[in-house]
């Protein structure tokens, strides 16, 4: 079997063994083991250079390499949190949860190595369906409602992406081209694609993959899904699925650029970006539920990602860097919020106060995560947001830069009130039997926070080169 297919097959094999394992205690450990196994595999593939297999349907280009390297690291951190979390929730069977988590991991890998528009679409569809059961972990009326919205809105987005894919195929047919939808071929022939069909396709694909990203106004599933999902699932949705969908958007942006229609695609992305940041910011103000607050923060950051991409060049570089920063930061926020939620048994700031006293480590991480996510130095998001801002100003788009800053400020104020309410104050008296912090519940978050801090202080030369080569790959300056 080829090395690339192994990336998909390995987690699937672990999923099957999770399905077959009968011990509730042992099963969750398969998740971190699967994640750990991927590290040497990916390193081996990465060192053998770019590759293409199966008529060019599978392959690793610079963008896919960046995505997979990031996802592997991110998923590893989240996976290490899983056994401790599932042990806290020992009252619920975890067979389906573990299996679906591993299937989801496999499908994210498939997404990363897809070089065909249709195959990539199948992968994003599979991630949606495999996360459905994860959202429904708590089996109560609220979680079924959230799952229902997530699946329905996600399916509509995916269906629109399918229509966009059809349109893209038709634009190639109309131009009388060899009807291959491998990205490399589409980009090579992009200039001769039928322009009206291509534009319609790009709009639909942006809406479709944008729904999976959670860009406003297609974000309405997000607060419910992130609010009701276990914190671990929230983390992998906010850091994993949305990053995959963003890479999908970037691939179609690349096709538009190659077709000489960059201006149109950029205007679309800019509109989505500013609107998402505004929606995220407005709904974060006076938000009383700290998990829903994180969902709106995710909407905002998806806006930042596409806004950076709409500037192009250094903005796109900053946006790719922000993809990593956002993912790691969301990991910190969601997992520490999960610890707080477990302890207090509530998501409302009306009853959650004084987390710093009750859970010193988790609440400190939550607070640091808040500073990171709102773009305070010296954390990573500050650097990437500053890169995007500088690119906007250097490009002469002062109005965009001002709006960007104003919205970031709005978010800082809105989010700050909620976060401070959670961590400060006196902890209500509790019976000592409540969930306490364990090492395994805190250590993965510390690692994630360390990554966020590291990316803010120092971007390694290899990473910088990888980011630039991905950015150049998208915009065709190869």
């Amino acid at each position, binding site marked *: 079997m080829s090395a690339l297919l192994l990336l998909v097959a390995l987690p699937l094999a672990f999923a099957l063994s999770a399905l077959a394992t009968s011990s509730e205690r042992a099963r969750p450990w398969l998740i971190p083991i699967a994640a750990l196994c991927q590290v040497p595999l990916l390193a081996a593939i990465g060192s053998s250079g770019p590759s293409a297999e199966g008529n060019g349907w599978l392959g690793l280009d610079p963008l896919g390499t960046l995505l997979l390297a990031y996802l592997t690291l991110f998923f590893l951190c989240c996976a290490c949190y899983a056994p401790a979390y599932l042990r806290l929730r020992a009252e619920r069977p975890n067979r389906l949860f573990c299996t679906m988590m591993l299937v989801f991991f496999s499908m994210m890998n498939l997404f990363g190595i897809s070089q065909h528009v*249709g*195959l990539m*679409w*199948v992968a994003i*569809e599979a991630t949606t*369906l495999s996360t*459905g059961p994860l959202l*429904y972990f708590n089996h*109560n*009326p*609220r979680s*079924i*409602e*959230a*799952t*229902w*919205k997530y*699946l*329905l809105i996600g*399916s*509509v987005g*995916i*269906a629109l992406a*399918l*229509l966009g*894919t*059809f*349109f893209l*195929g*038709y634009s190639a*047919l*109309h131009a009388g081209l060899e*009807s291959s*939808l491998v990205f490399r071929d589409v980009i090579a022939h992009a200039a001769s694609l*039928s322009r*009206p*069909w291509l534009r*319609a396709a790009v709009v639909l694909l942006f809406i479709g993959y944008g729904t999976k990203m959670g860009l406003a106004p297609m974000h309405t599933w997000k*607060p*419910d899904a992130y*609010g*009701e999902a276990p914190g671990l699932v929230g983390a992998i949705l906010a850091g994993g699925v949305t990053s995959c969908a963003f890479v999908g958007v970037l691939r179609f942006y690349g096709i538009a650029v190659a077709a000489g229609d960059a201006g149109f695609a950029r205007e679309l992305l800019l509109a989505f970006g500013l609107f998402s940041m505004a929606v995220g910011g407005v*709904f974060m103000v006076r938000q009383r539920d700290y998990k829903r607050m994180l969902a709106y923060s995710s909407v905002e950051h998806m806006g930042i990602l596409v806004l950076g991409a709409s500037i192009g060049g250094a903005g796109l570089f900053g946006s790719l860097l922000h993809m990593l920063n956002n993912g790691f930061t969301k990991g910190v926020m969601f997992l520490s919020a999960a610890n707080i939620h477990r302890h207090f048994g509530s998501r409302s700031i009306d009853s959650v106060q004084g987390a710093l006293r009750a859970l010193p480590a988790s609440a400190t991480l939550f607070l640091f995560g808040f500073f990171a996510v709102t773009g305070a130095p010296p954390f990573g998001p500050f650097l990437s947001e500053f890169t995007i801002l500088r690119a906007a100003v250097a490009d002469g788009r002062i109005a965009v830069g001002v709006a960007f800053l104003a919205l970031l400020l709005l978010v800082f104020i809105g989010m700050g009130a909620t976060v401070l309410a959670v961590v400060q104050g006196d902890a209500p008296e509790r019976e000592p039997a409540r969930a306490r912090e364990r090492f395994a519940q805190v250590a993965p978050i510390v690692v994630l926070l360390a990554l966020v801090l590291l990316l803010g202080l120092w971007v390694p030369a290899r990473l910088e080169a990888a980011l630039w080569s991905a950015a150049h790959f998208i915009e065709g300056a190869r």
Partner: protein
Amino acid sequence: VAEGLNLLLVIFLLLNFWMLGTSRLRAVIHCAGAQGLLLGAAYLLMHATSGPRAIALGVAVAAIKGVLIPRILIGALRGQPIRREAEPFISFTVSLLLGALATGLAVLFARTLPLIETDAGALLVPTSLATVLTGFIVLTTRRKALTQVVGYLTLENGIFIFGLTLIEAMPFLVEAGILLDVLVAVFVMGVVVEHIVAEFSSLGGDELTELRE
């Protein structure tokens, strides 16, 4: 062939309006199912000569979208006290008007998209877009989980009409779309609707209103 196709597409459009105007859940499901059958017929009509793969695709579309999924939905309806859509967010008259507006817009927009000359049936693209929009209207304005599913199916039917143009050149894409259908049928309808029924003990949608700002 072109005349036969146009006839099918006109019936398709009429079914859209019927779906928008009726309040009976059973009728709405049957509309979507009939569209599925028409879709299968159209696939066979246009591609019967292009080999076993295309024929198998047409039969599969008719079987899944025309028979299997409607049966699942009717089955979900059985044993439920509800037969009609409980007051939708907008009245049936307004949704009919919206449907007419959407169809008009679809025709206008389709004019801006150049067709390959050999593609018979000028109605193909407008019908496809109009059906997608109709599905969207049903999806967003009805309260019942079941009707929302039917809206989604209609939206998909519209997409598959457009798929007619691509079967020969890119069969993989259309087949992948069918896969989506099967999976959504199993996951969303089979599993989730059952859980909704269990949790709310009546076919939800209306009851799914706890989560909001």
